[in-house]
């Protein structure tokens, strides 16, 4: 299953062939990361390797800094797939934020990270200095990070590079917002997500998934909304088999 998320490219460098870890192994912090080159490449020219989250360069070697499963994507991308609850802002990720304050030209948005992000009032579609967007404190916004690194305050926008909203902006009249782990969110957003496919068979509902672990669900009745919310929260630690039996049981037993 290929997880779709924006990889924070920490480093790339030239690597010598070494045989130790296979993709799919569980690694712990402090392990020195080495991998096996495919047999087809016979020339001794070193290859560039892109390291994603969980791997850090330390001089000549790459160390694992989070515990998790080693994943690989062709041709040369490696990362550690770890289960985590706390969100750390990353550039380009789309998140659900809650407006906490309006101060002058910017809104302060809570995204669940270590500091609040700022969202300019001009960063909405069709917003000008005279035409302010209709955003109140407490609203939910679906927006994207344009600046998100450890040294600066994170900044959000609700438009893409062409100036169109593209699905972003204020939303959430009715519905339920709840929090799940980051791993589940990545599995939901993957291109061939099985969880999403199973959920679609239940009943019609609207869902917004933020990469900060926040999910917003709205369905026709409150009961259906709660059912979907409970299912998502509980299917985190189930195998595919258990999940499908649970969904089937709920679909049979419900209205």
């Amino acid at each position, binding site marked *: 299953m290929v997880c779709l998320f924006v990889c924070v490219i920490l480093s790339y460098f030239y690597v010598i062939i070494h045989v130790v870890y296979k993709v799919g192994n*569980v690694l712990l912090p*402090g392990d020195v990361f080495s991998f096996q080159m495919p047999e087809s490449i016979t020339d001794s020219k070193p290859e560039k390797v892109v390291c994603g989250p969980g791997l850090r360069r330390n001089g000549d070697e790459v160390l694992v800094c989070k515990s998790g499963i080693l994943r690989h994507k062709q041709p040369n991308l490696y990362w550690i797939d770890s*289960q985590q*609850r*706390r969100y750390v802002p990353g550039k380009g990720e789309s998140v659900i934020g809650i407006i906490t304050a309006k101060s002058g030209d910017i809104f302060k948005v809570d995204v669940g990270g*270590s500091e609040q992000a700022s969202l300019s009032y001009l960063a909405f579609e069709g917003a000008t200095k005279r035409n302010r967007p209709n955003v109140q404190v407490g609203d939910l916004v679906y927006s994207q990070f344009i600046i998100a690194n450890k040294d600066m305050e994170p900044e959000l926008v609700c438009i893409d590079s062409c100036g169109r909203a593209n699905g972003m902006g204020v939303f959430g009249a009715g519905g339920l917002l709840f929090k799940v782990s980051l791993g589940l969110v990545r599995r939901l957003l993957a291109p061939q997500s099985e969880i999403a496919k199973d959920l679609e068979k239940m009943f019609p509902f609207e869902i917004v998934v933020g990469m900060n672990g926040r999910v917003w669900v709205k369905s026709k009745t409150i009961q259906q909304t709660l059912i979907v919310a409970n299912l998502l929260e509980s299917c985190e630690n189930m*195998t595919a088999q258990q999940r499908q039996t649970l969904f089937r049981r709920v679909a049979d037993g419900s209205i």
Partner: protein
Amino acid sequence: MPSSLSVQMTTQISYVKSPRQSSSFLFTSTMDVCASSSPTLREFGCEQNLLSRPDGSSSFVQGDTSVLAGVYGPAEVKVSKEIYDRATLEVVMQPKVGLPGVRERAREQCVRETCEASLLSTLHPRSSLTLVLQVVHDDGSLLSCFLNSACMALMDAGLPMSCLFAGVTCAIDTDGQVITDPNAAQEKESRALMTFAIDSTERRVMMSSTRGSFTVHELQQCIAVSQKASDKIFQFYRDSVRRRYSKTL
């Protein structure tokens, strides 16, 4: 040469499903090797991700000593406490009965220094990391139990670390024998008590806390014994984490 060399290894694996249906488990291993070269540790077990509110949590059991750890972070920090280039780590220890006192403060200092040495706190400047440790039962080797549960909780929270650490306690009794992982009765009768935090990459001593009188030779002997015992603990960490991720593999 020890005359009775009995190796009895029983592994008991029990999968525990908590009400929250988290991917937690209890893994216990008993190893009873009567040889003077191998240190004996009490039965230990661990569980990760058992609390719903903290970002990372763990429970570590060594014999009868049991400790619960919770980690919050990276979270918002007060401007007075923030450090411009690294994360602010705060350790809070709660005893089983009563309010935390000077003894807890001293232990908090030991755990905090060990954690700061192994965490990559420069990746989260101007944030706060809070580690809360709660004593569930104290039957000796409390500081090493704190260290082990802290390490598992930090791993569970997904905080970037450069290495893992394990805590080992050694006691020197009145005869001069070295006992690893002593219980409360053995600690009380001992002449000296030492706790070391050993790192996983090069097995070096990260932190040491000692009480009592001992010679330099005895100290070196205890360090050697602790380094050997830490191998078992690191292997246990690896097995625990592997078991935890076995569902998503």
